[in-house]
Every structure is written in structure tokens, then in C-alpha cells.
């Protein structure tokens, strides 16, 4: 199959050797690059913002899944911008029901496919961070625990962006949102980001991964593994939001990359409980650099930045301290 337009035929493989090589020959992503569809199943012309990280997450996931998939979707930005009747960006069967039930709807779809003898059709459930870590938490937990054969993809832009940037359980420490504004008595969001992938992993499901839209091959490879997994699989993809984070459109990917390079977001996967870091930043960048690029953190004092840096350092040591690579 022809290599998709959005994947350069040569990638600088920072994960392995730093050398330039034909992407199709890369031992890590070669198979992905060969198999991935060159079709755009998430069509252009949708109403997403320029520089929207979440639409990238949708589009790349569908490239991996191909046509033989049914998508369920929670209420949220991606649902609104992709399905205003009579238009649709979805070239695969797609259903949106409500905010908190994407995983429950997916269980019904999966059960129906089994009952109708169509086991070959894949099921992907999408939800934003609010629709996953907050209001959709119960439905997701139930669907994971029951062992349905489906992939849940949480696109995490770290607040309720659809309703105008309100704080969610996935909002990072210190971030200004419209419901966690800084003020005389407040420095912004007081809590640390809910560790959803770890909570999901506690269900004992066969595949859990974190990803970032700034690392498309890593993300797509994880979606591929998730789709190949028999039983429930979960991919939590960090996705930048230009209005929500207060960043220029053209900086969307740069900021998302810096989240990973600073250790604010770590890329790993858990296959049958066995963990593996899939990307170690070549050089640990200070959290301050990441924060400085975004309006939502602009108000933070050095004291609060220090709190965040310590939080990141602890996790960094925990993860990379044990990593063999």
C-alpha cells in the first residue's frame, strides 16, 4: 500500500538510532507504515480549529483502523465539529449518543456484532478527557471490566473545551480554566491531573497506552496494537487545544512535543501488565519552558512552577530511572 501523505517517507528516527532511514524499513514502525491506509476516513472540511490536536488524533486513528470499523463517540468538541447535520466528516459508520456513555454504546455495538456474526468488524469508542475521566468514568470502567473487544481512545486536551474551557479531572496543576481562574485567593487549578491510564490498567485489561499527537508514529503504532488486541484496549492520547491552552495554531505540535520532552506527559504502554516506555526524551527540558508557551500557565509564580517541576521529577525518576534503554 502507498505510504500516506501525512507520513514523510523519511523520518528521523529519534527512538532508536537518530539516523535517517526509509520509514518502511524502520524496525519499529515499518509494518505500520506499510499497512496504514492512505485514505482519509476522517474528512477535511470539518469545523475544528486550525491547529487542533484532537482532530489529528481522530484522523490518525482511522488511518490505522481502515474502513472496517464502527465508531462510537461521546459528546464533546470532536462530536460537534465533525457532525453538524447535514454534513459529516466520518467516512466510517459513526454514532454519537450522549456525553457519558461512549463506552456503554460501544459495548452494545460489540455485542450486536457478535450476535450477528460480524466479529471481523472493529469497534472504537472516542471520548474527551471530561467524557472519560469524569462523567464517562463509570460506563468506561464497566465496559473494560466486562471484557468487550473494543478500543477506547481518550483524547485529552485537559479541560472541558467544548463548553468553554472548564476544569476537568484531567486538568493539570496550576492551569487557568474558566472554572479554576487565578485570582487573589487562587493560583488556578489546585489539583494534579488524574492518572487515568493507571486507573484503567488496574482493570487488568490486555493493552493500555499513553500517546501524544506530537508523536504520530508512536500513537498510530499503539492504536494498531490496541486494535489487534483481543479484548478491551485503552489509548490515552494527549492532544493540544489552541484556544484552551492559549497557544498559536502553528505551535500546537511544538507544545505537545514539549509536554513529552519535559516529562509533563510520558509515553508508555502496558501489554498484559508489562510496562515499557516507548520514548525517552533525549534531553529533559525544564517544565518552565513548556509552561511559558501557554497562556493557561502564564500567571504561575516560580513557587508554583517549582511544585510542578518536583512533581514531574518524581515521575521522571520513577519511570526513566528503571528504564534500560
Amino acid at each position: 500500500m502507498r505510504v500516506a501523505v501525512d507520513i514523510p517517507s523519511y523520518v528521523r528516527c529519534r527512538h532508536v538510532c537518530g539516523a535517517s532511514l526509509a520509514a518502511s524499513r524502520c524496525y519499529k514502525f515499518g509494518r505500520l507504515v506499510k499497512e496504514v491506509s492512505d485514505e482519509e476516513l476522517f474528512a477535511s472540511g470539518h469545523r475544528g480549529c486550525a491547529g487542533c490536536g484532537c482532530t489529528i488524533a481522530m484522523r490518525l486513528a482511522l488511518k490505522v483502523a481502515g474502513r472496517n470499523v464502527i465508531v462510537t463517540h461521546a459528546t464533546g468538541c470532536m462530536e460537534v465539529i465533525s457532525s453538524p447535520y447535514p454534513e459529516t466528516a466520518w467516512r466510517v459508520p459513526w454514532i454519537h449518543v450522549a456525553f457519558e456513555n461512549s463506552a456503554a454504546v460501544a459495548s452494545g455495538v460489540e455485542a450486536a456484532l457478535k450476535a450477528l456474526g460480524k466479529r471481523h468488524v472493529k469497534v472504537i469508542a472516542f471520548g474527551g478527557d471530561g467524557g472519560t475521566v469524569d462523567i464517562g468514568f463509570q460506563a468506561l470502567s464497566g465496559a473494560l471490566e466486562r471484557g468487550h473487544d473494543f478500543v477506547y481512545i481518550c483524547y485529552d486536551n485537559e479541560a472541558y473545551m467544548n463548553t468553554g474551557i472548564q476544569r476537568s479531572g484531567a486538568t493539570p496543576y496550576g492551569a487557568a480554566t474558566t472554572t479554576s481562574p487565578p485570582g487573589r485567593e487562587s493560583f488556578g487549578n489546585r489539583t494534579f491531573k488524574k492518572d487515568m491510564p493507571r486507573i484503567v490498567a488496574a482493570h487488568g485489561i490486555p493493552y493500555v497506552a499513553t500517546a501524544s499527537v506530537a508523536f504520530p508514529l508512536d500513537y498510530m503504532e499503539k492504536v494498531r496494537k490496541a486494535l489487534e488486541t483481543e479484548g478491551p484496549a485503552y489509548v490515552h492520547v494527549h492532544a493540544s487545544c489552541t484556544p484552551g491552552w492559549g497557544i498559536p495554531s502553528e505551535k500546537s505540535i511544538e507544545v505537545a512535543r514539549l509536554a513529552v520532552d519535559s516529562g509533563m506527559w510520558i509515553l508508555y504502554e502496558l501489554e498484559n501488565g508489562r510496562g515499557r516506555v516507548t520514548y525517552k526524551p533525549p534531553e529533559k527540558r525544564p517544565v518552565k519552558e513548556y509552561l511559558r508557551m501557554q497562556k493557561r500557565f502564564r500567571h504561575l509564580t516560580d513557587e508554583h512552577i517549582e511544585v510542578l517541576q518536583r512533581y514531574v521529577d518524581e515521575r521522571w525518576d520513577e519511570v526513566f530511572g528503571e528504564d534500560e534503554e
Partner: protein
Amino acid sequence: MPHRDVMHGSRAVAEAVRLCDVKVVAAYPITPQTHIVEDIAEMVANGELDAEYIMVESEHSAMSACIGASATGARSFTATASQGLALMHEVLWIASGLRLPIVMVNANRALSAPINIWNDQSDSIAERDSGWIQIYVETAQEALDSVIQAYRIAEDAEVLLPAMVCMDGFVLTHTVEPVEVPDREQVREYLPELRMPHTLDPENPVTMGSLGDPNYYMECRKQQELAMERALEVARRADEEFRRVFGRGYGVVEEYNMEDAEVVLVTMGSVAGTIKDTIDMLGDESVGLLRLRLFRPFPKEAVRRALANAKVVNVIEKDVSIGMGEGALMTELKSVLYGSDIKVLGTVAGLGGRDITTEHIRQAVERAQRALRGERVDEVAWAGLKEEAV
């Protein structure tokens, strides 16, 4: 071959689900619905019903899973009651808005607070505007037959709406009655395989559940209303056809002792049995019963026709609209009879499982008869209320 057996009303529902070859069942336990989903689980476990049985973690997910399954083209079923139905409220509207022919049995139970597991009909009546067909049954036999009919009506290409079969909790679910279980082949003849015009199918991708802005939303609602209006005729024909195949039917309304009735009691559900007994005991030709089997769509013409010679109506119902001072059925009946000379009275009865006795029915008849004689009577009475405790 059809066979007769004695069974709980819940078992009768499970038999209907088996006979309808339901493909996906999503179930969350709640009293007094539990026996229904237990019996279905047993049938699946024994291989008597070849269905996917999803043990969901809430009623909200039960209905969500049914929506997903139905949208994928599988005949789907769930059952609930009271708090469970209330938790489903959000997704009930979506099931009907997406025009999915899901069938659900609601084992009617009072709503909290105070928490109460016993029977009344406030739960399903509160969902009257959710776009679901609602059938209220009197007996276990009718529950079984109505589930089969509900699929036939819901899946009709002219309708494509979800349907709720409402059966009084405990009074019907937990009571043993003789029931005739129809022959499976006959049911298959009556209820063909589900064929939906649009499903989630990779061969023919469609988008379901789009955003409907102010340019489109009203037309969607109007289409639902029109489908509901068509459902009335479809339900009438489905019942006639049922009578032809299985030898029994119910109509969209049932009339009892109505030929010369000037005083008519109007009700829904199992209390019709107590009312029929009371009428028999009174032996009075001037007192009749009109039982609404279909509440949504509301059988307006059938009700007007049945009440053409009535003078006073007393609506006996197990629900009350707080702040309106009467039950919803009474309000709706007044609306349907607007412009006629029929006097409409109401009796709020049996809330939270309070017994409705023949004495209460007799009092309701007497109040209507006093009104017929021109005496002033209370428009609404609460049967069996302990006045001293209020």
C-alpha cells in the same frame, strides 16, 4: 405447539423475549424487575435463547448498550423500574430520537423519596413525553403478548420507535397466573426478522446522532410525532393480526360493561381487574370501565368513541402530578374530552403500593354517581389516604 403453564408475570416476559429471538439483552437489576432478567439469564445460560447478555453497570448503560446494539441492527431488550427508568431518562429521548425499535419492560414502581419498592405508575408516566410507545397491561398473559406485539409495532417501517411495556410491579411481576405460551414458529410468522433502513455497517457507512441545529431540530421532532400517530393504526392492526394468529387480542382500549354505562371508571394496568370485580359485584348496568392499554400514542378517537354515552368519568390512576393536584391521565382525558359535556373526576390511588380495594372502587363509583345527580363532589380524591397523618 402453544402450551399452558402457571408462571410469574416476570417469567411470562422472559418467555416472550425468548420467543422473539432477541439478539442483545442489557440488564441491570432493580426490584421488582429482577426476575425478568434472571429468567432471561437462565435461558441464555441453558442455550434456550441465543443472545448476547450484557451485565451492564447501570440502567443508563443498559439503555446506552441497547441503543448501540439496535443501531447495529440487532433486536434488543432491557427491563427496568422506577429509579432505573429515571436514570435512563436522558437516553430514553435519544433512543426515540434516533428512531431505534428497542423494547423495554418497565415493572412499575414508585419513585423515591421516600424510597419505596412497591407499585405505582409515576415512573413510566413521568416519561410520557420521551417519544416511547407505552403499553400498560392487566395480566401476565397480556404482558407476554404485549412484548411480542411491541416488537411488531416498534419495528414497523412506518413507525421505528422504541416501545415500553408497563406492568405493575409485584402485582403482575411476582404473581403466578395461568399463561399460554405461544408456539415459536407462530411467533416467527407474526414477527419477521428485524430489517432496519439504516444500521451501523462498514459496507454502507452512516452518521447517527448528528448535531441538529435550529434549522433541523423541529423537523426531527415533527417526524417523531408523525411516526407516533402512525403507530396508533399500526398497533391496532398488530393486535388484530395477533388475534388472528394466536386467538386472543386486547384492542388499544378495552371496554367492560360499557353498553349502557353513564358512569365510567377509566384506568390503566392491573387495577382494572379489581374494578371489573367491583362492577360485577355492583351488578349495575350504568357503571362501566374503560381501560387504556395504549397511553402513547394516546388513542384519542377510541376514547371519545367509547365515552360517547358517558355522563361522568372517574379516572383511577396510580400517579399524581405534584402541583397540578391530579394525575396525568385525568389531565389528558379532560383535554381529549374538551368541548363535551362529560364531567371528569379523578382518584389518586395506590401510590407507593397502597392497596386499592373494592371498597375504594365503590367509593369512586359513588362519588361519580353523586356528581351525576348534580351534587357537588370533590373533583379529585385520594383513595385510602390517612387524613390524620397528612
